[in-house]
């Protein structure tokens, strides 16, 4: 009984949110028409949809270009970040060396590094991926290291009382223990990777949604810019939920039991 009301409450809440968004879009449309706002300044939603639909033929190519930069950069960041976190946790020396370097790297605005990547790697997908990776990298390292160290000390007492091999402790205790931490880092990282990919496309690219934003801006095609912004946010949501789905599949024990009613 309670469960049914809970579910319908959730549905009601999402309906409310949907209705509010729809109302805002309508208000936008009406305001643009009644106040006669210039479309290059603020195009009405109908115009955005129409203009974006007109270039639909080239959209998949640009969408996929950005998506590849995000996905590639994201996995590069994992491939570099997770082993680095392991190194930091297992070696006090590496920790003393790497942490200050990471902090320095983190305090440099990544947007400022991007032109340097162009010089080093050149234009193109690989360069975009690397820029996305440098932005996404930090939360992965920090969260993985935190997770690896969060293992219950009594559990480690237990493994040492069994005289267990280090590799077994790592693979069967520390790594699974760190997985939920890793995933909360990945959720932040994937969003950052998208920012990184768009920045990379701003600086030097001949395709991608970021590239379209930039070119439509210089051509005063504001409606296309808005259309690309919608597509970019859709991509961000898509990537976020893809990571969350992976989390559900890989660490089901971590998620609250379905009976737990969360806010």
């Amino acid at each position, binding site marked *: 009984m309670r469960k049914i009301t809970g579910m319908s409450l959730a549905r009601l809440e999402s309906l409310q949110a949907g209705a509010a968004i729809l109302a805002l879009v309508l208000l936008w449309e009406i305001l643009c028409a009644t106040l006669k706002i210039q479309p290059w300044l603020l195009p009405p939603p109908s115009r955005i949809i129409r203009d974006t639909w007109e270039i639909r033929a080239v959209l998949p190519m640009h969408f996929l270009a950005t998506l590849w930069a995000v996905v590639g950069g994201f996995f590069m960041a994992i491939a570099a970040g997770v082993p680095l976190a392991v190194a930091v946790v297992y070696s006090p020396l590496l920790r003393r060396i790497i942490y200050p370097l990471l902090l320095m790297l983190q305090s440099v605005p990544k947007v400022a590094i991007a032109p340097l990547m162009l010089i080093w790697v050149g234009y193109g997908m690989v360069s975009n991926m690397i820029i996305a990776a440098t932005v996404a990298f930090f939360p992965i390292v920090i969260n993985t290291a935190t997770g690896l160290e969060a293992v219950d000390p*009594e559990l480690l007492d*237990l493994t*040492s*009382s069994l005289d*267990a091999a280090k590799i077994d402790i790592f693979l*069967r205790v520390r790594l*699974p223990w760190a997985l939920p931490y890793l995933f909360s880092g990945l959720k932040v990282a994937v969003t950052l990777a998208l920012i990184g990919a768009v920045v990379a496309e701003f600086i030097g690219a001949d395709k991608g949604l970021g590239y379209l934003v930039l070119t439509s801006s210089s051509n005063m095609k504001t409606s296309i810019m808005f259309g690309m912004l919608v597509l970019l946010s859709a991509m961000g949501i898509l990537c976020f939920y893809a990571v969350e789905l992976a989390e559900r599949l890989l660490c089901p024990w971590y998620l609250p039991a379905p009976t737990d009613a969360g806010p």
Partner: protein
Amino acid sequence: MHGTPRPADAPHAGPSAAPLISLRGVTKRFATRSGDEVLALKEVTLDIPPDQFVTLVGPSGCGKSTLLKLVGGIAAPSDGEVRLDGRRLDRPSRDVGMVFQRPVLLPWRSVLDNILFPIQMLGWPKAEYLDETHRLIELVGLRGFEKALPKELSGGMQQRVSICRALIYNPRLLLMDEPFGALDAMTREDMSIEVMRIWTERRKTVVFVTHSINEAVLLADRVIVMTARPGRVVLDIPVDLPRPRSLATEFLPRFREHAETIRRAIYAERRKTP
């Protein structure tokens, strides 16, 4: 005299019985962050014969947990020596099972796989221990929960799983560090009965740390009282209450006497050190 004849009558056994655990002048010092030294244990000398159920009582910080770590071979004494079955302990021994205050199960593993965890860590063939796992699950009354994840179990059930995990590789010595400390009072009493039942079926040497004087007397063949700063043994008495015991045992005059003796030992020490 005891109603049931068994080797755990060891406090009455003569010095000829070879101890399973033997501590000689064991001292343990820790360095704190500020560089001061803390004396956790001071010259503890102790023999525990096989199959005895020993409880360790004392205030927080009296070095009970430190003592368990030394006996478990996961910490080394600063002075003195710890022997297990005559051999000097300088590394962890597979003859020791540990149960902690919290169950510390692996949250991603089922009850069955949590119990098999030590077998895997020891690199022993899992398949050969499946039957024993099921027997242990039966023994602690968790049948039907083999596939359950820890989060689906109550605190008492989780602690039963952790006891099974300590028993699966059949160690001769079981170290229990306030194993019921995190449980509510009623579950705690159930678990005391449970542990006595398990101990009757799987005879082991048990060193059991507790804050509860009643729990200490109810479970033990022998109660050791420790005091804090530095941690040392101030009382070591045999408990000559008949077995099997139940919660009704707590009403026996002899039980009260033991509890009183222990309480006096703890409070006498406390008055000395303000």
